[in-house]
């Protein structure tokens, strides 16, 4: 086991990692920016070093200062958390070059899964269903022929990608010619690269993802799925739950076995998540996240496991303690993200001082947070203040408990998503478990009219 771990992150995940380390008897070193000097993650760690000013490029992404901190404090491993350097293959390599164990998968795997085209190809080869699509299309005729095969509606996308530029939805063959030429022209004008490709448009999909764990000896297990279909228009997740409600047993089985097959195919070690789009009985691989995720606690609740400790044990060279047969889910868990933002104003993020903060407690409630009464929310970072997780034997129990917990929650000084979460929990769509990724955007539209 490691002696000392550098936590290369901030906020609630830095606290989460610190807790796992301390429970394993591992010492910790925190890093922080000048804007985070009074943050809780700095107080909880045994040692803490300022690595730069507020802007992330100069602090939480400042690789030389982070590596230097790890070396002068005698760390033997680095935990990247999520975001920042968590999926930076180069950073993982630099850690290795300096004799530090990067707590995550191998750099080659991070790089391969970070590139969408490579990830898709690898998954296809492993027999994982991916969104049907094409390579670069040379002509309108080729585009029409491809669309016939894939089935309308389809999306034309610029290979250079970004900002929705050069992207067109095509609902039928009569629209293809116009869409193809305008997408090509727009892509040329925006990226100096007019090449476009095609993908099937999945209508009203659910976002369901599978948690996997792999060790350094080729053992891979899954820890069930999470439904993350409650997403803001920007596709950021707001509420997640495990297991996914109303998921057909056959679809679940294919999802889980596909995830394990995919992780084996890339010889995956450490914790990872495979994201899928699910529409009816069809399942399509979207991407793999080679890190711990924000919503990992819902899996921890139903599997009664500590995923961050597992990450550390695996990186330290231990074998997976559990076989697939040992891992039995129990009950239902829901997570609500409490963000410092205004749902009535397009989720505008807010910085400021939290004048009064009271988090819920009692049976079946877990709160992961780095804020407290009097804490300031700096403008440089993610707006998430806390994750409230409710566990129940049934989905109904978990919802009732979450509602009770949200009513206990007090956050004064900035606008938050608390009321919005309560509103969502009260809808028929959420209560019945019949919702897809268009759910929150259309709920917001209905409220705005």
């Amino acid at each position: 086991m490691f002696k000392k771990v550098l936590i290369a992150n901030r906020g609630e995940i830095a606290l989460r990692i610190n807790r796992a380390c301390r429970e394993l008897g591992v010492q910790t070193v925190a890093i922080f920016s000048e804007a985070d000097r009074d943050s809780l993650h700095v107080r909880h760690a045994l040692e803490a070093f300022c690595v730069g000013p507020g802007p992330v490029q100069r602090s939480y992404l400042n690789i030389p200062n982070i590596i230097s901190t790890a070396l002068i404090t005698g760390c033997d491993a680095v935990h990247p958390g999520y975001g920042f350097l968590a999926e930076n293959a180069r950073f993982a390599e630099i850690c290795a070059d300096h004799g530090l164990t990067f707590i995550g998968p191998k750099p080659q795997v991070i790089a391969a899964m970070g590139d969408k085209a490579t990830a898709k190809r690898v998954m296809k080869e492993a027999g994982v269903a991916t969104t049907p699509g094409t390579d670069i299309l040379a002509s309108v005729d080729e585009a029409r022929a491809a669309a016939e095969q894939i089935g309308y509606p389809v999306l034309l996308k610029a290979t250079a990608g970004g900002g929705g530029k050069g992207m067109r939805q095509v609902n039928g063959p009569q629209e293809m010619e116009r869409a193809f030429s305008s997408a090509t022209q727009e892509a040329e004008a925006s990226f100096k690269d007019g090449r476009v490709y095609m993908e099937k448009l999945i209508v009203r999909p659910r976002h369901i993802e599978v948690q996997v764990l792999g060790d350094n000896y080729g053992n891979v297990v899954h820890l069930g799925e999470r439904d993350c279909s409650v997403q803001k228009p920007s596709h950021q997740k707001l509420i997640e739950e495990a297991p996914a409600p109303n998921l057909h047993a056959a679809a679940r089985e294919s999802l889980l076995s596909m995830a394990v097959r995919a992780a084996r195919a890339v010889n995956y070690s450490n914790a990872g998540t495979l994201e899928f789009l699910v529409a009816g009985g069809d399942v399509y691989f979207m991407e793999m996240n080679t890190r711990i995720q924000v919503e990992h606690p819902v899996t921890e609740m139903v599997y009664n496991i500590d995923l961050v400790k597992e990450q550390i044990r695996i990186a330290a060279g231990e074998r997976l303690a559990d076989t697939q047969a040992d891992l039995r889910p129990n009950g239902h868990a829901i997570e609500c993200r409490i963000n410092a933002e205004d749902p009535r104003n397009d989720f505008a993020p807010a910085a400021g001082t939290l004048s009064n903060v009271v988090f819920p407690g009692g049976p079946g409630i877990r709160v992961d947070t780095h804020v407290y009464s009097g804490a300031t929310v700096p403008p440089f970072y993610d707006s998430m203040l806390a994750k409230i997780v409710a566990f129940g034997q049934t989905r109904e129990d978990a919802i009732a408990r979450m509602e009770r917990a949200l009513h206990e929650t007090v956050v004064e000084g900035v606008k938050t998503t608390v009321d919005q979460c309560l509103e969502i929990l009260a809808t028929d769509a959420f209560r019945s478990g019949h919702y897809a990724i268009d759910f929150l955007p259309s709920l917001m539209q209905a409220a705005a009219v």
Partner: protein
Amino acid sequence: MSRAAVGIGSNLGDPPANVRRALRALSRAGRVVARSRLYRSKPWGVPDQPDFCNAVAIIETPLTPRGLLDVLKQIEGDLGRKPGMRWGPRTADLDILLFEGERVDEPDLRIPHAHLYERAFVLAPLAELDDSFRPALEALDASERAGVVPLEGRETVALMSDDALIERVRTLAEAFIETDLLRLRIEAENEDAVELRKPHSAPARKPTAAEAAAMEPQPAVKPDRIKADLVGILHFTRPLVHEGDRLDGDRELAHVEALGIRNPVRSLGGGRVASVRCKDGQAVEYGQVLFEIERG
């Protein structure tokens, strides 16, 4: 992917809300990696207009400068800017200030932005995100700088466009200082609440003249602080400097060893060493004060 700095300004309707909306809409053009606080500034060019709210964001974008400009125009359109006066009131105005590795000089697009080094409302938020803009900001005329005020904290005072209401809050704030109250909350219909607070330790009333005289700081030259700008192990450079030593000019005082590289710490000019705040062989962090030097 390229990095670009985008400036945002608004002086119509609810300017801070417009700027926030524009900041959010920027995700259409790429990933927003940093953004400044909001600043209030007096209108420039055309007087008799409401105050501006300004901010700067750094984005990582796959777009070309031209492609980015198109997206910014689209965002302006969505936010309701009406084509018209060149420097007239607008819902929101988005400009490319800088674009990594690009220089453009065309009638409708100049990168770096034509007025980049002339306007405090651009430089102040930029300097917040990148220290290298600080000298340019400080070189600006004091009167120009005075017109720019960061909207601190909850920023709600700035949301009230009604001068009468601002006047009322100011009167209440003055009265509040005279009282023993620590917290005062003012709620007006259709407005965000305003909260005034005093630190718990601060005296709640005005000090008497005698107390004020006793508290008056002794006139003294504030020493320059020499700080570490990276994390590493500090080693003194010989000959060692001690408290009270006089330095004739710029010299190396110590160096910080990081990743096998020796990074000098210099006195940046002469003066008297007021204090040595570090020990040989010590681990130092970013921003840690190492030496204090009295100039002159």
